[in-house]
Structure formats: C-alpha cells, structure tokens
C-alpha cells in the first residue's frame, strides 16, 4: 500500500509542451516555459518600432533645433540615420538585455526574458553573441531584399532567398525554438511574466455553505477545478450561468440559488475535497480518473 501510495503522489500530469526543467540549487524545479515563436516575433517587431520611432523623433528634434538656430540640418541627416540606426540596432538589444530584467522593452511588454540555457548567470558575451548574429538573421536578409534589383540574376536572387529563409525560419524547426543567435550564445528566451497575487476564490464562498453530497464532490477532478477557477476569475455572467447549469445537470441539483453563489460554493467544496485527498496521496487528474 505504501509503495503504491508513493507512486501516486508523484505529479502524473503530462509536462506541457514548451515547459523546461530548471532545478534550483535548493532542489526545486521552476518549470520554465519557453516563449513561443509568435511572442518572440511580436516582441521583436515592437522593439524595431521603438527604434524607428526614436530615430524619427531625434530627426525631428534636430530639424527643430536647426530651424530655431536658423541653420540647415541637412548635414546631420545621414549621420543620424547611418550611425544612429547602427548604434541603436546593435546596442539597444544588448543594453537592455544586460539590465537585471534581461529583456528589451518589447520582451518586457510580452513578459519574456533571456536566460542562459544552463540556468547559470547570463554572461555579457552570451548577450553579445546572440545579438551580433541578429545582423545575419534579420538585417542581412532585409538589405538583400531591398538592394537586389535588376542587377543580379534570378538564380542568385533565389539562392539568396533560400539562404535567408534558412536563418529566418530556423526557430520553427527545433524543439527549443532557438534562433541561430541563441545557439551561438547558449541562451534561450523564456516566459517570465510578472503576476500579482490574486484573491483566493475560496474567500468568496458564502458563509452558510451549501451542503454537497460526497457523490457530488466526486464528480470532477483537478482539471475541471482549474477550468472552474478560470471561469470564476473572469466573472462573465453568461458563462457562469451556462457552467452552473451544466454542473447542476450533472449533479442532479435544482437551481435554488443564483449561479455565481452556487459556483463559488461548489468551487470551495470541490477544492476542499480534492485537496484533502491530495494530502492522502491521491491526485485526481480529471473526471475520468477513477480510483
């Protein structure tokens, strides 16, 4: 019995796709989640937008200054765009990723951060490597697309496009969604959103609790409890009414109290039941998980 019990205690939930193990020196697995390709692309576009926006702002500022000073600012224009774009392009990413957040503003907005793949401290050279390679992955293809006109053969065009595609689509074809820069720098990008502590829904249950029969509390497992939690946190009346109706139908109960009140009471009771069984070593995954 005790042997069987210990195997049951283990979290049998299948690891999510994109979850990676990071065991801290204290021996706790933080279960990092990798950022998906869409998030990373969105973060990158945001960053590029910020860079271009600040260049435009700088240009306007210089023109304004020149206009007030009564001189022509045309002289500075190439310097601003050539040097400014180069410096921003290369040092914007590095500067922000060197900060304690290890994320550019775009990544921060999407709740991402760069970390070393081995879980150790993120070295400056790793950040430099991952950003220097960006030149090859993004800006070279862009320059290529812009400059290759009628001057070169179609064949060279096609070969160039294939070459660029290999780099641009590289993150889609490996398990860890690494781009070449991550590969060279030994880094990856994980989700590290800042979450606030939300209220405990068990607090919301009305004080004279509705009594549920043991059979009613055995109807669902942890997966359903989590779905119910999401529904309650969203507080959408129509959804709550529909969910309450489904649960009542399954339990064979009549609609005596408002949907919200019923759901909160059922949530607290179900969580109490599942948690006390958890303490006895039984983690009931979902409603199909029979004893």
């Amino acid at each position: 019995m005790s042997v069987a019990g210990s195997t049951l205690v283990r979290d049998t939930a299948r690891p999510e796709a994109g979850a990676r193990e990071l065991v801290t020196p204290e021996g706790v697995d933080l279960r990092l989640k990798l950022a998906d390709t869409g998030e990373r692309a969105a973060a990158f576009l945001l960053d590029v937008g910020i860079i271009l926006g600040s260049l435009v702002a700088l240009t306007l500022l210089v023109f304004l200054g020149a206009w007030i000073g009564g001189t022509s600012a045309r002289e500075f224009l190439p310097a601003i765009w050539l040097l400014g774009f180069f410096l921003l392009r290369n040092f914007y990413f590095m500067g922000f990723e060197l900060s304690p957040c290890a994320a550019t503003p775009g990544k921060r907005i999407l709740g991402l951060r760069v970390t070393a793949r081995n879980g150790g401290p993120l070295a400056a050279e790793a950040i430099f490597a991952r950003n220097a390679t960006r030149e090859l992955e993004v800006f070279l293809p862009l320059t290529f697309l812009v400059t290759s006109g009628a001057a070169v053969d179609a064949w060279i065009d096609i070969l160039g496009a294939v070459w660029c595609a290999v780099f641009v689509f590289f993150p889609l074809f490996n398990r860890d969604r690494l781009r070449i820069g991550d590969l060279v720098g030994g880094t990856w990008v994980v989700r590290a959103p800042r979450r606030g502590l939300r209220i405990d829904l068990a607090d919301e249950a009305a004080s004279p609790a509705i009594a549920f029969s043991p059979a009613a509390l055995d109807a669902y497992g942890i997966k359903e409890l989590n779905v119910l939690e999401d529904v309650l946190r969203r507080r959408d009346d129509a959804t709550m009414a529909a969910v309450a109706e489904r649960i009542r139908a399954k339990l064979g109960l009549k609609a005596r109290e408002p949907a919200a009140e019923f759901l909160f009471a059922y949530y607290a009771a179900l969580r109490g039941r599942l948690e006390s069984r958890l303490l006895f070593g039984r983690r009931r995954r979902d409603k199909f998980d029979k004893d």
Partner: protein
Amino acid sequence: MGIVLKSHRFRREREADWQRLEDLLDRFEGGRRSTLTNDEIIAIPVLYRATLSSLSVARAISLDKGLLEYLESLCTRAYFCVYGTRTTVIERLASFFADEWPRAVQSIWRETLFAGAITLLGAFVAFVLVQHSPDWFGTFIPEGLAQGRGPSASTTELRETLFGKHGANGLTVFATFLFTHNAQIAILAFALGFACCLPTALLMAYNGMMLGALFAVFLQHGLAPEFGGWVLIHGVTELFAVTLAGAAGFRIGWALAFPGERSRLEALTQAGREAAIVMAGVIVMLGCAGLLEGFGRQLITSTVARYAVALTTAFLWGVFFYRPRALT
C-alpha cells in the same frame, strides 16, 4: 466562511513575505537598486528561499491555480535575481576592457594568423594581376568605391585623392559612414563564420584583394610610400580589427565543423562566447579606425606624420593584446 481549507490557511500565513519579496524585486528590477538598504538586500535571498519552499509545499497541498502560477513566477524572478549576474554594467565594461578582451584576442592567435595570411594572399594575387594587366582593377574594386582612383587616372589626380581635403563639415558624415560600413563588414565576417569558415575566408581574401589592387595602381605611378601612409594611418587599426573579426568567425566555423570530443552544440556555444568577446572589442577598434580615417587622415597630410601615427597605433595595440599575461 464555510470550510476552512488548509491551503487557504497556508496562504494567509505566508502572504506577507511573498508580497515583501515581490516589492523588493520590483525595486531591484526597476532600476531603483540604490534605494534598497543593506538589510533589504540581505533579506532577498532569505525571502527567496522561504518562497521557494512555499512553492514546493503549495504544489503538494494546494489546487489554487492562481496561487501556483503566482509563486512560480515570483520564484523565477527571485531566482534570476539571486543567482544571476550581480555586477553592474559599468563593472562589466571595466573588466571587459582590462582583462577579458585582450585575453580572448590572445587565445585566438592561430585563427588571427590564418585570417591575416588569407588577407595577404588576396592582396598579393590582386597585386600581381593588376601589375600584369590593369584591366583586372575593375574586377576587384567596383566603380563607386574607386572614386576615380582607377588605373586610367593621372598621377596628379591620384596624388589629389591621397592629400585632398574634404570640407571640414563633410568629415562627420564621412567618418560615420566609414565606421558603420566597416563595422558591418566585420560583423558579417564574424556571423558568416557560422557557415563553416568558407564565406569568411572569401570575405577576408576579397578585403585583401581591394588593397592589393589599389597598391598596384599607386605603385605604377610612383606613389607607393604616400599610399602606404594614406592606408596605414587608420589601416593598422582597421585591418587588424577586420582580421580579428575574421579570426572570430573562423573560431566558430571550426568548432562547428570539428567539435572534437564535445557535442556540436556545446562546442558552438563555447566558441561563440569567446568569439563574441573578441567581436565586441572589434567594434570599438573600428570606432577608433573610423575616427582616424575620417578626421586624422584628412587633417594630417604629411606622409611622415601618417607613418608615425601608424607605428604608434601598431605598438599600442600590440602591447595591449600580446603582452605576456599570468594564466588564470
């Protein structure tokens, strides 16, 4: 309150610590690090361990998904704060220039020799070809870059390109253009190393060829010493930087092609880091070269002075990179 859940009580007892840790982390990450007192800094690891143990208890007893997600994100943030890098950006920069960069450059001396040899080979081939028949010149140097320095130019015109003055206003633009152009070539040489060295080797050879072809043209007009001064005043720094960039590319390509006993990914990561240190410095060198080329060369027009500057830079870089160092 109908049922008192164990997990609910567990949360109520520890909530305050979690909130305190969250507040400290907010200030730490938000760039308000200086507002943290010593006591608060010491409290971070303690609170981190307490929260981590809360997380592992919560995983065992609580089914509140919101709570678990909160604790996971809080622990992850605290983990990176406690075990991440603790040096400031300024400290990192200082140790980079004083130690890491010259050490890294020293460690890739073999690749540097190789990259230098390929550049020289390219220069030699182009030199011989252009000496043989000036028609080759156009193959090596595109019309736009030559700016009238072709074999058909007269001696006076060539001399003019060596000593002519751009307007003082034009210099800012010229210097920035040169810097971004060269930096791009260097980054390309480094990044292309990823494709097993070959494109880097081509780029190095081509860089040498442009030099060789130009030299041949100026030699035919008896302007070789002046040309030397014109190139070397910034070329010592610039050519050295581009050679180092190529060497960094070779290091990566070599690790990828011949990883030895390590796995390919491991070898690539290690080589990538070493090469990246070299590259960060190369960009700085190119900045110096751009200044020398854009301002120094246009303002110093005596050939002897140009050679003096070239020799000084060669000496400084040589001592900086290759002076004997204690092993770490």
